């Protein structure tokens, strides 16, 4: 493990840092992230990240997984909010339990995380599709 380039703490702090770091990294090794190591290593190698240490790879995987889970959770919240809004009086069932991840929810949640995702809803054959018949040239 490379020596820590920690800024200005006393020897005690450094000792704590070292131990904290060691604990942190050892706890990482216990956890198996969903994103496989081979995938992470492949893309890290592509972007110039060079480190033979597996723990760092795991750290990257865990960070990515955390990020993804947060996005998915936000999308779920959006989906549930969408379902809760129109209350159907006819159906006795409280709500439909069908939760579908749609592009709308996803784009909304990613917007909060700084990712602009816009999805075209449909594709038209020609520019005049869907226009009013009066305005369409025939």
């Amino acid at each position, binding site marked *: 493990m490379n020596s820590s380039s920690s800024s200005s703490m006393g020897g005690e702090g450094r000792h704590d840092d070292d131990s904290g770091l060691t604990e942190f990294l050892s706890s990482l090794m216990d956890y198996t992230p969903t994103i496989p190591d081979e995938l992470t290593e492949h893309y890290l190698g592509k*972007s110039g*990240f060079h480190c033979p240490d597996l723990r760092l790879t795991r750290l*990257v995987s865990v960070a990515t997984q955390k990020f993804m889970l947060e*996005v998915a959770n936000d999308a*779920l919240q959006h989906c549930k909010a969408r379902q809760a809004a129109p209350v159907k009086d006819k159906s006795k069932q409280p709500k439909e339990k069908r939760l*579908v*991840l749609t592009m709308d929810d996803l784009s909304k949640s990613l917007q909060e995380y700084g990712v602009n995702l816009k999805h075209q809803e449909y594709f038209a054959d020609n520019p005049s599709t869907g226009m009013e018949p009066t305005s369409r040239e025939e």
Partner: protein
Amino acid sequence: MSDGNKDSGRGQQISSKKSRLSGGDDFGRAIAKIAVAQLCESTGFHYSRRSAIDALGEVAVRYICDLGKSASFYANLAGRTGCNVFDVIQGIQDLDSWRGFSGASGVQRCLVNSGVVREITQFVSTEEEIPFVQPIPRFPVSRMPKHAPSFAQAGEEPPGEHIPDWLPRLPDPHTYVHTSVWNKRDTDVKADMVELAKRRRKAERSLLSLQQRLACNGTAGFRPTKDGHVGNGNQVVNDNPLLASPLPYGEKQVSEIASPLKAYSGKRLSVLETFVPVIKAAKVGSLDFNTNERKLLHGIRPTVQFKVGTVKKSVAASLPSDTLIADKDSWSLKYDEKDDKKKRAEIIFRAAIDKPHELAQL
């Protein structure tokens, strides 16, 4: 990517066909999509749109790449090429900085105590593990190119002192100096000689037969032909008259006018038509061929009927030897003017053309 891997089902999708630009990274993207789908399912989604999963997988790949870039950037900033944990932590902080994390405002802080580390620690401790569904091999698989062996590896001595032995060896001389070609044909000398003698004999035979035929055609009416046909020897029979050698002027009497009349009178219509005046004259008076010939010469000249057929006639056997000698004399007398060798060449040439015809006779 198979749907069987994911537990979440696929909902109805209103998506149009998009042209897939297949890059070299399809495998990595597919893996990322599977992992992301697992995460969504763990969150609580039952179904998902395919486009949404594609987008989320792409976001995950981008996140990994950006993290790696930032970490390597920080390592380079510190004058290193290999990244360490603090570079990674700083990279994570960069990506999460817009959202904010606790302890971001502190200037002098240890990275280990930074908010991101704590969050990750908390995440690791609380979240349950969701391992990836399938073991995947290391990718991308790179193929090692096959190098040409060096001099030392091949066990050869380099041709010159100036060439070190760790260089690849020179190619085989047959590729650039000379490629030997082996003649596949078996040359049997004896068989070749036999074949050659056979051909020579054939040529001589055909030449002889041609000479004999010319002699018999040349001497007017002298040669008894054994073909059994009634008529003068002046009939041009069983031979291609167009290929016969031209006769000198005055040598051959043009008495052929009479012969068709004699042989075929009354048998063919065309002949009858042509020879109407002759027949009339014959009916009137005695048949005087000479006078008739002269008369007819001025008038219509009838067509000469050539008899061309496969007549079995053995040329060599039919002629007695003394007549053969006489033949040669008369023949040589006739062709005194022309060069003998040149004539022979012409005859052989014609014999070669005539060969299939003669072979049938022989």
